[in-house]
């Protein structure tokens, strides 16, 4: 009997362990996709919608729904980026996780899509769905994986009304923090205030530049919400800091996604 209980507990623990993190959660992903859609050129918007047969937000969380299920299990590691031991972006991931980084996949897909007119529609559609999600995911502060060896101090939990709360879960849902019942449109109306100069600055540069920027901003999340920070007892200023970082990263994701899709589909 005792053995059965121990086995059962192990199964429960194992099941909890494999619960997948849903970067940005459904709201964040949808909002990023919605804002990106507002900044597509008419040509790109028309082409993207033609392939998807839907709006961008409709597929914003598709990769989370399918990530662990065949035939998409290989995409399970396409949701984040990695830092090396010195805190620099890793492009040299080898072995089982060779294709593991969201940014590596985004770069590969963008290259592949240069010839999208000669590709089957189903592959173009699938690649667009991957881009919508992976570009957003790589901008989520807690989706940068720091090595245990040099960043052991980044492995901690927050608190919610005194009880332990996952740092990851908190930042995944950060764009919706304190914003009950917001729709994507409202998010865009209230948060998407960038001037065209600011937008160009965000979109400028190579993937390496974007990656360095993401890594830099990610450290702010650990400063704003240190270990044991109680998210239910934050001051107004602390909440504003959370939203400021979440919105900054969401806007970067949205504008860069629009930039990528405009380059693929907007070119005449």
């Amino acid at each position, binding site marked *: 009997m005792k053995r059965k209980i121990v086995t059962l507990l192990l199964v429960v623990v194992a099941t909890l362990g494999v619960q997948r993190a849903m970067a940005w959660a*459904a709201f964040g992903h949808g909002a990023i996709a919605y804002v990106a859609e507002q900044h597509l050129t008419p040509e790109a918007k028309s082409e993207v919608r033609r392939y998807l047969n839907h709006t961008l937000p409709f597929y914003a969380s598709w990769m989370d729904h399918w990530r*662990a*299920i065949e035939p998409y299990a290989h995409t399970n*590691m396409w949701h984040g980026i990695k830092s090396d031991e010195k805190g620099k972006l890793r492009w040299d991931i080898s072995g089982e*996780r060779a294709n593991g980084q969201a940014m590596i996949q985004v770069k590969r897909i963008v290259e592949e899509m240069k010839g999208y007119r000669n590709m089957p529609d189903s592959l173009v559609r699938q690649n667009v769905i991957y881009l919508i999600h992976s570009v957003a995911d790589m901008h989520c502060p807690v989706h940068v994986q720091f090595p245990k060896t040099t960043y052991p101090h980044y492995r901690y939990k927050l608190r919610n009304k005194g009880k332990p709360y996952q740092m990851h879960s908190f930042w995944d849902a950060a764009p919706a923090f304190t914003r009950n019942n917001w729709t994507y449109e409202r998010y865009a109306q209230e948060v998407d205030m960038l001037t065209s100069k600011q937008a160009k600055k965000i979109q400028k540069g190579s993937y390496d530049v974007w990656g360095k920027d993401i890594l830099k901003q990610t450290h702010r999340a650990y400063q704003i919400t240190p270990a044991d920070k109680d998210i239910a007892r934050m001051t107004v200023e602390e909440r504003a800091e959370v939203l400021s970082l979440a919105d900054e990263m969401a806007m970067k994701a949205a504008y860069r996604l629009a930039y990528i899709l405009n380059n693929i589909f907007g070119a005449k």
Partner: protein
Amino acid sequence: MKKIIAVLFAVAMVANEAYAFKAIGHQTIAAIAERHMTEKAKSEVQTILNADMTRHAMWLYSLRKNPQLAHTQQWQYATLNAEGKSVTTYENDAVVVLERAVEVLCNRKNESDSLVQAALRTVVQVVGDIHNPANIRIEGNEATKGFNFTLYAITKGSSAGENLVKRKNSWHAMWHNYTNRHDIFSPQYYASDIELCYGSKKAEYEKGTPRFWAENVGEDVVRCLEVIYPDAMLKTEIAHRYEAIHDKCMAKAGYRLAALLNSIFK
């Protein structure tokens, strides 16, 4: 007949209006309809409701809280016979309620304003209701009343290895969850999304009468029940794939609601 109509709707009218945020499905159907209504129909509907239709898309749900109006809970269900035909005359069946409400609206010049408003609110909601597969019941098919099943996934993660993850689900919850997935869309944006996918089918979908519409949804129900059945163990991806049927039903509901209102207010 007229007396029964009056009593049913008069009782319904005493309830307060409700506005539920989670009503995204009904509101989206109303939003799709508004995009395809004639200017005349839109104007008359606006005058009767004194607001746009999305604000009234969940009206009937608020009535159930009143014990005197508990019977209105049944108004969302349409029952088909064993052959999948809508032949019922049961007064609380969704299709019969819809027919009565349409009758009131067609005869609106001789009815009180409040009765006409109640009938219109009922039409807006019940057209949506009969397009939810969970609201179609087929005689002799107990499964259509609801059942539980289990979804499972063999997940593969590089760090976690291969795992079997099981999740309980139910016939009703499955259809409602598809709607809830979109509760962060506004009804107007969700409507535009659905139209991207099903807009080309509008002319085909809007044909027929409420009885045909219920039968049409019943055909989808029968097909789904061949795969999803009581106590079944199903792969998660099967549930993901049925989301397209849910969206197709919403598109049909929106186009049919517009067609019905255009024909009433021509």
